[in-house]
């Protein structure tokens, strides 16, 4: 009989055992009576010959019970009964563990999604990022440089180029700004990703000259805009006014290489020659990811990249002079995030430790109550190991129940998590999920929790002094001794941990308050609503026809005090910014360059007043700037400090892409993408034209 059969047919087994032994005795009695012995005497004699009946039975039962699972199930049944008998303890312990483990799993899912998971590609270990290094600054690559690297490099089995763009998608109804990755055509084949629907573009495929360029769309966009239509392949979608044919749909789990910022569409660069300037070596906007051939040494990679960089530097001094390449594996790149990983996992780890401490305390208290039971078991011959095992099984059971509920908590958290992110047009649902990795983590964490919370009480309980416990009334006499050592340690540890967490939380709070005080360059007390407007394809696209009437309508809404428009949003968080090349009469540009590369924005005329950015000198834009011939700009304080130190910049001139502009005002400094970045020069152009 297998252990599980025995488990389910426990009653039957017991009946059989009884019958078998009774048969033996009856048979012996019958035989003895047949020899002439009296019935009573025969019965006595048979029992004597048989020996201990109960002991034999017990040993027979033990034969089955020596199985691992049998004991486990026995202990689990016992543990569950015990829990059911003290629902208060069960509820508190489970709640504590659920919170502790759920918190850990949730944070692990987040940390894993952000900082730990390897790139979503085949053999991610072979992949390395490549950056350019020029004049002491890390730069991204230009498309011509990328093509040269591909042609001349031999250490890589493939290199891909990726540039994150925005594109205006129009599928006939509303227009939507989508995240488009402009990629080299070998992107999917190099990463080893196939389209579950349709196909992807592949290495060597030349799309230049195609009337309708191809796109691969993301699973999310497919669901959102096309209702998951399986017939989407071959349909036309309009991106930035260009009719493109949908070639395939990417797998659901694939959102590109930018963590937490999934791409909506992928466009092969060679099909979109007009999109960005792919022939311009000065236009550095591509991240490069290479796949190393197996067995290639780091030295060889560096040597080859140095050679290519030298060649580029010699051949194209205007753009590539002094260029070198850096290589970084994803794992190395992720090491930059070790601090938040340690902080987050360590923090929630401490919380779990405190939870374990609490449960440990409760178990110690329970161990006291169970002292008599345990003493009785020991007296009946239960081994200390067996007892330990049972007590640990009980805490494992608690921990695993907690883990199950904790996973539910995590699932709920991950479901609600998008609501915790600040709203904005570019916020994507992060790819946080409960997968095999987080399940393994949860299991490890909960087993650890079981050990931490259960081991001390179990050891303590099984050390019960038999005689004094059994003698003592209600086993209460020696509870003092049992309590002191372990519990003091526990309380001290918990206080220490709580204090640590409290201090860390305090530090977090302080930096939060500190970041409140950062001056972002506008009045944060104003309530602002940022709306991104995208004219639908074929509709009016000039500012006069579209934005001005739209603005008028918004201004006339009740409750709106003011409205303006800008090319780039405040603190858009995109990490980049539009740039232009500026030359300033009397200021020497950096060597090898025609001018300074400076970020800019184009803003409506009430912009400064509406967002609450102060004009320190000069004036803001007004009706004069609505004339297309009037070329005026405002600059920020950083720009004034850098180029006109000690003089008033208002009234000065600068040249942007060949046209002369006059500075009419000085605006207060502000950060561009997010409040943590350093201040830098910034130019405001009038948006009116």
């Amino acid at each position, binding site marked *: 009989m297998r252990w599980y059969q025995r488990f389910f047919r426990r009653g039957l087994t017991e009946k*059989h055992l009884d019958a078998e032994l009774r*048969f033996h005795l009856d048979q*012996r009695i019958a035989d003895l009576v047949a020899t002439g012995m009296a019935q009573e005497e025969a019965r006595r004699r048979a029992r004597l*010959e048989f*020996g201990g009946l109960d002991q*034999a039975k017990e040993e*027979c039962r033990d*034969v089955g019970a020596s199985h691992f699972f049998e004991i486990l199930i026995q202990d689990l049944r016992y543990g569950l009964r015990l829990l059911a008998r003290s629902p208060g303890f069960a509820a508190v312990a489970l709640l504590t563990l659920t919170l502790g483990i759920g918190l850990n799993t949730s944070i692990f899912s987040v940390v894993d999604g952000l900082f730990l998971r390897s790139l979503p590609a085949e053999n991610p270990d072979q992949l390395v990022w490549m950056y350019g290094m020029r004049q002491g600054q890390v730069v991204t690559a230009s498309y011509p440089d990328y093509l040269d690297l591909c042609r001349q490099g031999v250490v890589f089995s493939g290199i891909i180029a990726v540039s994150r763009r925005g594109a205006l998608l129009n599928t006939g109804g509303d227009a939507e700004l989508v995240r488009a990755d402009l990629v080299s055509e070998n992107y999917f084949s190099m990463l080893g990703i196939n389209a579950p629907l349709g196909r992807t573009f592949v290495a060597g495929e030349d799309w230049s000259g195609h009337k309708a360029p191809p796109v691969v769309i993301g699973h999310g966009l497919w669901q959102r805009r096309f209702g998951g239509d399986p017939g989407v392949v071959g349909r036309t979608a309009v991106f930035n006014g260009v009719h493109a044919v949908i070639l395939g749909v990417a797998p659901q789990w694939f959102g590109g290489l930018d963590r937490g910022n999934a791409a909506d569409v992928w466009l092969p660069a060679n099909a979109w020659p007009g999109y960005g300037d792919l022939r311009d070596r000065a236009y550095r906007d591509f991240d490069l990811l290479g796949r190393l051939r197996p067995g290639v040494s780091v030295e060889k990679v560096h040597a080859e990249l140095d050679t290519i960089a030298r060649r580029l530097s010699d051949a194209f001094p205007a753009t590539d002079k002094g260029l070198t390449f850096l290589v970084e594996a994803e794992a190395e790149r992720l090491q930059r995030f070790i601090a938040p990983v340690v902080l987050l996992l360590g923090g929630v780890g401490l919380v779990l430790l405190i939870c374990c401490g609490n449960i440990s305390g409760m178990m110690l208290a329970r161990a006291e109550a169970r002292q008599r039971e345990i003493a009785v078991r020991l007296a009946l011959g239960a081994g200390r190991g067996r007892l330990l095992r049972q007590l640990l099984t009980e805490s494992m059971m608690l921990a695993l129940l907690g883990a199950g509920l904790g996973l539910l908590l995590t699932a709920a958290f991950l479901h609600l998590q998008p609501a915790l992110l600040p709203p904005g047009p570019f916020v994507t649902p992060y790819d946080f999920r409960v997968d095999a990795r987080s399940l393994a983590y949860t299991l490890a964490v909960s087993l650890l929790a079981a050990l931490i919370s259960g081991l001390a009480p179990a050891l303590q309980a099984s050390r019960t002094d038999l005689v004094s416990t059994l003698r003592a009334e209600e086993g209460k006499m020696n509870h003092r001794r049992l309590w002191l050592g372990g519990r003091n340690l526990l309380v001290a540890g918990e206080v220490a941990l709580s204090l640590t967490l409290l201090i860390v939380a305090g530090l977090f709070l302080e930096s939060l308050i500190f970041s409140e005080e950062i001056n972002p360059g506008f009045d944060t007390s104003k309530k602002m609503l940022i709306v991104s407007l995208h004219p639908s394809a074929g509709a009016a696209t000039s500012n006069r026809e579209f934005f001005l009437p739209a603005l008028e309508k918004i201004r006339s809404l009740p409750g709106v005090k003011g409205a303006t428009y800008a090319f780039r949003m405040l603190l858009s968080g995109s990490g980049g910014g539009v740039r232009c090349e500026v030359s300033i009469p009397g200021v020497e540009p950096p060597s090898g360059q025609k001018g300074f590369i400076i970020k800019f924005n184009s803003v409506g005329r009430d912009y400064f007043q509406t967002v609450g950015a102060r004009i320190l000198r000069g004036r803001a834009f007004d009706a004069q700037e609505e004339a297309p011939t009037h070329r005026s700009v405002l600059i920020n304080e950083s720009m004034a400090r850098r180029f006109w130190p000690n003089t008033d910049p208002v009234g000065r001139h600068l040249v942007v892409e060949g046209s002369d502009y006059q500075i009419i005002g000085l605006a207060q400094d502000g950060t561009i993408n997010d409040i943590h970045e350093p201040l830098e020069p910034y130019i405001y152009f009038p948006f009116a034209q």
Partner: protein
Amino acid sequence: MAEQKAELLKGTLDMLILKIVALGPIHGYAIAQRIQQISREFFQLQQGSLYPALHRLEDRGWLQAQWRPTDTGREAKFYALTKVGRKQLEAEVANWERITAAVALILRTAE
């Protein structure tokens, strides 16, 4: 009583049971009788200790049990040897013979 009784050597009970069951399906009481008869009442066997052994051998898959009526019509649990059990018996007998031969050899040469 002048007769000398010996404790059964540890581990030999299993072998004896297997040997007896090898003769054909048999119930526990009969096994106990057999052991006592064959050994001419030499071994002192607490009959109760037979059953844990039987259950252990069954659990290891060396014996197979079945409830069947005896001659008197009463149901009893009959044990029979399995294939694995037969192999085990052969191995144990071979082992036993090796040990006794070795012990006998030592005793003879030591004289």
